């Protein structure tokens, strides 16, 4: 059902063409093969989950997509063009943003400054005009501040706007990090375990934000998550990795019924 053209999900969202495709990616660290010949695609407007047991290569896959790791083999296609070897900051300018498994906020800065920093790729005024400030630089700052304030409203973090992020509790830090990634208005948003270490309530909040981001901004999202309930509930399609190999790919229902996936999660003797 996934081949060719767009389709409509059961809840009425239109999923578009392929936005990103990884083809036959192989990543090795010395003798260790982290990812072995994996191919899958991410379509415009969908929520794509990557799941798998510990050490399956999920985070490595995200690191390949946003340029921290360079695979030995394989191709990455983004928005219809093959991507050469690029630095992470150049990939950010192409429109890929992400959050980290262990929060990677700028601890010395306030919530507002963190999210404003997320607007980095959208700001254009040259440094010498920033040095003068009055005029274009201030205007650009205010324009971007307005967008950032919308994100702050959206994530319901108005009260902690001026608080240094180091002082915030874990759940809020995760939310600020999501805000920072959203500030870049990404074409593709990568979330590395957005719900790790959260309680049920915080997980519900975060799931709602992820669905709302996808729904309101139409952002394509690829996420890694361990909570199966959440994954099956919010994602449109799921790719399952195990020992660096792809063992399943499809809608949550298809994946749930896949014998290899059941084996990988419940554990069977490998012969």
């Amino acid at each position, binding site marked *: 059902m996934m081949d060719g053209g767009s389709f409509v999900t059961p809840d009425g969202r239109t999923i578009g063409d392929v936005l990103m495709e990884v083809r036959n990616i192989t990543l090795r660290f010395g003798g260790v093969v982290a990812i072995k010949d994996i191919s899958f695609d991410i379509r415009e407007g969908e929520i794509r989950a990557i799941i798998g047991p510990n050490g399956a290569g999920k985070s490595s896959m995200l690191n390949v997509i946003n340029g921290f790791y360079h695979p030995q083999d394989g191709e990455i296609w983004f928005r219809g063009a093959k991507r050469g070897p690029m630095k992470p900051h150049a990939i950010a300018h192409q429109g890929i943003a992400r959050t980290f498994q262990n929060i*990677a906020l*700028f601890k*010395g800065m306030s919530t507002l400054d963190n999210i404003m920093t997320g607007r*980095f790729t959208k700001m254009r005024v040259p440094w010498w005009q*920033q040095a003068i400030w009055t005029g274009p630089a201030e205007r650009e700052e205010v324009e971007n501040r307005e967008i950032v304030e919308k994100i702050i409203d959206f994530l319901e973090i108005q009260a902690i706007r001026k608080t240094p992020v180091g002082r915030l509790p874990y759940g809020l830090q995760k939310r600020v990090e999501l805000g920072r990634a959203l500030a870049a208005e990404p074409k593709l948003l990568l979330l590395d375990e957005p719900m790790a270490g959260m309680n049920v309530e915080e997980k519900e909040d975060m799931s709602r934000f992820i669905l709302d981001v996808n729904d309101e901004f139409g952002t394509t999202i690829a996420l890694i998550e361990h909570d199966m309930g959440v994954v099956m509930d919010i994602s449109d399609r799921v790719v399952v990795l195990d020992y660096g190999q792809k063992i399943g790919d499809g809608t949550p229902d298809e994946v749930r019924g896949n014998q290899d996936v059941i084996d990988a999660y419940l554990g069977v003797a490998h012969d």
Partner: protein
Amino acid sequence: MFYREAGDFKTSYAADGQTFPIAFDRWRYFAVLAIAFLVVPFTINEYVASAVLIPFLIWSIIAIGLNILTGYCGQVSLGTGGFMAVGAYAAYKIMTAAPELNIFFVVLLSGGVTALVGLLFGLPSLRIKGFYLAVATLAAQFFLVWLFNRVPWFYNNSASGQINAPDRTLGGFLITGPNATPEAKYLFCLVFVFGMAWLARNLTRGRLGRSWMAIRDMDIAAEIIGVNPLKAKLSAFAVSSFFVGVGGALFFTVYLGAVEVGEAFGINKSFLALFMIIIGGLGSIFGSFAGAAFIVLLPVFMKNVMVGGFGWPTDIATHFEFVILGALIIVFLIAEPHGLAAFWRTIKEKLRLWPFPH
């Protein structure tokens, strides 16, 4: 009339982002400016200018420069003295090569030359971090001082190996040389301090400044946001060196007048600048001023108290100065590790509620 944040509502993002968001602070700032520009020049004398005000102003510029690199961008540098020397020698070479050039532009150009040299010595920062980078910048310090000592071209082959600032005027007033009046020297430095602090504030609150702080706090996250570490680090080195270079040029032309490089720009100057920003507060423009004031003014103050007040011999007073200054630095760092700027912030937070803290 009280120091109040409450009730001071902002209705635009521009007003919310201003440098002094609290009305009282704004008025205090204008008052300081007015006194500095309109009152001090008429009451200044030779001693106050050369012992207190001019070194304080020049060191403020240098501290702001180092704070941009270390406090905002997180790159430790022990090469400040060397970069000051670059500014001084650039000023000397430009002054002797182009005698008609206005002293104002000489100082700016010297800053520009230092920015280029800083860029060069900033290159290792792309590969090494922390203590190792500090050692690499230490190499810059020793190399630059050695260079200015050993290559006669830099001091125009003078027999003493010293450089002397020739007389230069600005708008008819003598700025450099032994006959310059303290008023002229003070105002010249003050204009630079004002302009440079304004530039530093603007650069650090915008896109560039945020990219520096992003690199300082979490370089991997900065990269995925689109910050090019190469550009961020090198721009911090260049801007910082520009400030330090301007400071070095003023130090030589206006303050000292004659310089022997090993003595004027040795490693102790690098440490002095580092002390200033650590005591004053990393990542704060106000902290740079506070640190410079602490390091420059305190010894003068103590000397006056001990020699003038108690009538102690000068040499004993000098030794005591070191003891007390060292002890004070330790006490300060234990009591407030984030410097005088954080101390000031705490006071401000307390003042919000004063006199009814509950």
